[in-house]
């Protein structure tokens, strides 16, 4: 690989002994644990990027003994596959992160919600979980983790839909507020974090908040695991420091002919070649849950957009009209323009519809369809029309 402005990091997959770290954490007060996570600047790695320490603090401040830790392992965003690798390679670090969170907020039960597509991981996870449960018992920490499986519904990655699913219902997102830290799983205070976020909290306890904070930029501290796919000779999973530009990324991972990078999956943004230099991968630019998909000049961006819209139309839970109808209309709309049944001006109407969905849809799914839609339509109009 080239001389890298893109800095490789090895925190997530580093093999460590969780026992030592957890013993150390057991000596700390909950406020100290939370403060260290706040100081690290860690933001959620599941996509939305909420500051993890603050989330823990909100949950810790809630009264009552019934609280839950939930590990979001639903990983359904197209182009994201790093949580699978983390759970496969270092499952005990994920459990350890949940246990640290349980100390911080005062919870006794944790759930891992694993997407059904990853069911093949279950025997291994159950074995590792049994060992971990024993460790908790030996160390005298009252915390139990249960494993739940999804059944092929992308929307169940949305936190409140995920709670509904664990509770045995259709995975339909709830209204917010109240937020999960106030009313989450079984309507109790809940701290839900992505797989990767939880592992970072372990490494922050191991190396200290400053070690993490020194990586990355002011708005995007630390590193992140990227899932790289598409037209690249080096598809795979890479942990990189945050704050690189798309140009730097493409220089390392591109095939020499990259015309666009979809950052953040179907729910993310399409960055065209002319914006590679100015676009930072991180919360100050284009945020990502890790999905980085490269497209070279042989690809039709119409096909790409059509594929994403088909995905959303299928995965929309159908609960609210802007999203249920909007996804279908966007899909039909670009098909009609392509066939010449509608003039290219109709695309402007569709962009407006996508903007309306952003305001009117109930959850992040419907709200984010417009990201890919508008960024692809605006940058690759000719490809959509002709």
């Amino acid at each position, binding site marked *: 690989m080239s001389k890298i402005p893109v800095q490789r990091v090895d925190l997530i997959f580093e093999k460590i002994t969780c026992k030592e770290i957890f013993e150390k954490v057991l000596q700390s007060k909950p406020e100290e644990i939370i403060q260290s996570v706040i100081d690290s600047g860690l933001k959620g790695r599941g996509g939305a990027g909420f500051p993890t320490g603050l989330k823990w603090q909100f949950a810790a401040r809630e009264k009552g003994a019934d609280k839950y830790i939930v590990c979001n392992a639903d990983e359904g965003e197209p182009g994201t596959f790093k949580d699978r690798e983390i759970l496969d390679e270092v499952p005990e670090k994920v459990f350890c992160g949940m246990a640290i969170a349980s100390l911080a907020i005062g919870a006794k039960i944790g759930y891992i919600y694993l997407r059904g597509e990853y069911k093949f991981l279950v025997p291994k996870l159950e074995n590792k979980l049994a060992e971990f449960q024993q460790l908790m018992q030996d160390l005298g920490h009252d915390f139990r983790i249960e494993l739940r499986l999804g059944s*092929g*519904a992308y929307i169940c990655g949305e936190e409140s839909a995920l709670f509904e699913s664990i*509770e045995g219902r259709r995975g339909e997102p709830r209204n917010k507020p109240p937020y999960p830290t106030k009313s989450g799983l079984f309507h109790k205070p809940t701290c839900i974090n992505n797989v990767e976020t939880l592992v970072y909290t372990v490494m922050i306890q191991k190396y200290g908040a400053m070690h993490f904070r020194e990586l990355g930029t002011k708005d995007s501290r630390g590193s992140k695991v990227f899932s790289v796919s598409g037209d690249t000779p080096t598809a795979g999973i890479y942990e990189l420091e945050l704050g690189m530009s798309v140009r730097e990324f493409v220089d390392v991972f591109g095939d020499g002919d990259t015309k666009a990078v979809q950052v953040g999956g179907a729910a993310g943004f399409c960055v065209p070649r002319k914006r590679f230099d100015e676009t930072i991968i991180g919360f100050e630019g284009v945020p990502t849950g890790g999905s980085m998909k490269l497209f070279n000049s042989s*690809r039709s961006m119409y096909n*790409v957009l059509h594929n*994403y819209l088909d995905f959303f139309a299928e995965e929309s839970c159908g609960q609210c009209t802007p999203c249920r109808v909007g996804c279908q209309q966007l899909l039909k709309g670009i098909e009609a323009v392509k066939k010449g049944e509608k003039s290219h001006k109709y695309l402007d109407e569709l962009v407006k519809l996508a903007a309306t969905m952003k305001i009117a849809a109930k959850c992040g799914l419907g709200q984010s369809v417009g990201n890919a839609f508008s960024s692809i339509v605006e940058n690759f109009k000719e490809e959509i029309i002709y």
Partner: protein
Amino acid sequence: MIINEELVKEAVKKHGSSRAALIPVLQELVAGKNYLSDLDMVEVAREMNLSAADVYGTATFYSFLDTRPRGKYVIRVCKTISCSMKGKNAILATIEETLKIKLGETTADRKFSLLETNCIGWCHKAPAILINDEPYTELTPKKVTEVLREYIKQ
């Protein structure tokens, strides 16, 4: 329509009859008999003290909780962008040819069903499919034929 009261009773015994056990129970049934018949769902509703409509409504939300008869091996071909870019159509065509069924169909001997699915998390090793719980990645028409041959033998 096939109903399996024993399976239902066992699943409810294993997971309990609280509402939160509903999806694990349904998952267990699908793992055992590949799909949920109407009568299965009625039986689950009775065992768990829920309305049949509620059980049906929950099951049909989830694409992996099939409510139509499926074969012993359910093949799900990923159709999301990376797999689609990297030759998914050729894989699908090869499977159709080998098993002599079209997308959405089940072989006459009830051994295989062929479906498409959304991103299964193997984009870096596209194209990928699931056969029941098992992922197969970096497929070529030749490789998928070999995989299928092993299943046909079983």
